[in-house]
């Protein structure tokens, strides 16, 4: 059984991810954030459900749509925001931005701008755990689109072969950038692909955080015991476009409205109301707390200096 505090922490994280990304969309629309951003609104149950099962020493690798994973793995909102603004106090001193938030101290190996690019890298941290004889687990997050990349298949095979302590978490939001799943793969369940590699494959309702947590806990425990990898498919829904500003002309408004009907935040809130763990006034209080955290983080980011031009040559190589 999950304790009340743990449930409330999960709810807080889901609210936080949702509101942070809503704010990012606003800030982006105002032209205050450089580059481009990809939000995961509607998919919050996956990072929160999975990362709630991880220990601080565990690793995750994630994708261009990785804000939720970073925050669920414990990223400090101020440093996270400063990174997105390209500022000195960001996790990567602003070098990476929205698509490349990484933190060695949090075990966040990296977010990745290349679809499927992070999957093989997660084999490496998992391999290091085996090599060093510790029980640190790696979770590799990627989308349905990435499961058509060669790296996905190579990585599942290798991890299966060597019983690497890794969980392959496929966030199936039914869209590979601008292309629906029906146009990019034949099979219904992505988890079936696990069969080819001789590992368990599970499909879970990825908009139900407690279901995600239950299956993730099983997969992570299996990895931690040295029993090898699992392919965990979380079926979820992307509400917004591939990137902020994408008008989604390739999607019907009916389908988008249907996607929003799966709202993982609302569903979890109702569950917690029913359990008596949460009351409407708690939600109000929580929303205020989150809003002020975001205000503070944005102010922190805007106050953090943009690194000097001369610093651009630093860290191309290690000179230690």
């Amino acid at each position, binding site marked *: 059984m999950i304790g009340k505090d743990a449930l409330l922490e999960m709810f807080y994280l889901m609210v936080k991810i949702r509101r942070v990304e809503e704010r990012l969309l606003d800030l982006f629309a105002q032209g205050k954030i450089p580059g481009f951003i990809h939000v995961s609104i509607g998919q919050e149950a996956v990072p929160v459900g999975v990362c709630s099962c991880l220990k601080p020493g565990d690793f995750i690798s994630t994708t261009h749509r990785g804000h939720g994973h970073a925050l669920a793995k414990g990223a400090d909102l101020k440093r996270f925001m400063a990174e997105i603004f390209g500022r000195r106090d960001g996790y990567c001193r602003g070098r990476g931005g929205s698509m490349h938030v990484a933190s060695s101290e949090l075990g966040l190996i990296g977010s990745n701008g290349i679809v499927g690019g992070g999957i093989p890298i997660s084999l490496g941290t998992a391999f290091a755990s085996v090599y060093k004889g510790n029980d640190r687990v790696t979770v590799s997050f990627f989308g349905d689109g990435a499961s058509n990349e060669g790296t996905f298949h190579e*990585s599942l095979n290798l991890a299966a072969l060597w019983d690497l302590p890794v969980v392959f978490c496929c966030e199936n939001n039914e869209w590979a950038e601008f292309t629906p799943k029906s146009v990019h793969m034949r099979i219904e369940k992505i988890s079936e692909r696990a069969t080819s590699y001789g590992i368990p494959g599970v499909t879970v309702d990825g908009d139900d955080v407690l279901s995600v947590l239950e299956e993730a806990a099983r997969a992570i425990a299996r990895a931690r015991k040295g029993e090898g990898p699992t392919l965990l498919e979380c079926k979820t829904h992307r509400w917004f476009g591939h990137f902020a500003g994408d008008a989604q002309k390739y999607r019907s408004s009916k389908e988008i409205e249907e996607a929003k009907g799966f709202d993982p935040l609302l569903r979890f809130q109702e569950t917690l109301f029913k359990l008596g763990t949460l009351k409407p006034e708690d939600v109000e209080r929580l929303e205020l707390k989150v809003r002020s955290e975001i205000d503070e983080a944005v102010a922190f980011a805007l106050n953090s200096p943009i690194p000097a031009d001369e610093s651009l040559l630093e860290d191309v190589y290690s000179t230690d």
Partner: protein
Amino acid sequence: MREVRYIRAVTEALREEMARDKMVFIIGEDVGLSGGSFSATRGLLEEFGERRVKDTPISEAAITGLALGAATQGLRPVLEIMFMDFLTVCMDQIVNQIAKTRYMSGGQYQLPLVIRTPCGGGLNAGPQHSQCLESWFAHVPGLKVVMPATPYDAKGLLKAAIRDDNPVLVVENKALYGTKGEIPEEEYLVPLGKAEVKREGRDVTVVATSRMVHEAMEAAGTLSKEGTEIEVIDLRSISPLDKETIFRSVEKTTRLVVAHEAVKAFGVGAEISALVSEEMIDCLDGPILRVGAPFAPVPYNLENAYLPRSTDVVKAVKRSLAY
């Protein structure tokens, strides 16, 4: 001193570094049981065990990414990619991931990893097993690229590469694997980023890489009989590039030829030529000339016509002097 083959010098470097540092491990296709396609890792599985010598599926992208992830945790992977041509199938991992991880993480990660791979023709291996692609990788900030031409450097550069905290591509040469050379009994390293003057001369500087170092030395012998003394520089490191050694030599000779086996166009020779003309054109008494392969894939059947040889170096030197 003792004489060893190039390939055994590679094995010695691997064995010594594995014995020295428990974080060093070997990963690649056929590196364990079979001892490697060119036998570079022969005996290492028996000596160090399966934990540290990892045979893998034919999945270059996965094993390259694995090396990266392991390196972020302080391991020191030595990855073998069987032929340089096969680097193309793990290009994303090398160029977008390995080369950029340190930079885009703001310096949080060090990547002490080595990719060993053999380049070059001479074995009639055909268009997909004979390329010299070093300039592609030297063009990418974040990577180091070295090309040993002798057993001495094959050992010393590899050892230095394994100890370096950056990703290093060690480009060996298949045609040189069987060649012999002297190495000392005692341990030594060859620093990355340092070229070596192999033969001093006053008339023309010839900067050469990998197999072309030997061709340049042969050319030096031929030319010497005719009264022309060339200075042969073995570049050894492509990136970082030892500009100082090249510039010092060109100041003396005032003439420069660059020789590599890679396709001449857009190659390392073009870079060196550009650097010298940008920074010391006043010193030059003739055009900078390049010796390299023609703009064609490496043919299976016409390798002799394709591969640059000492005679090409001789021709270039004479042309330079005739100017």
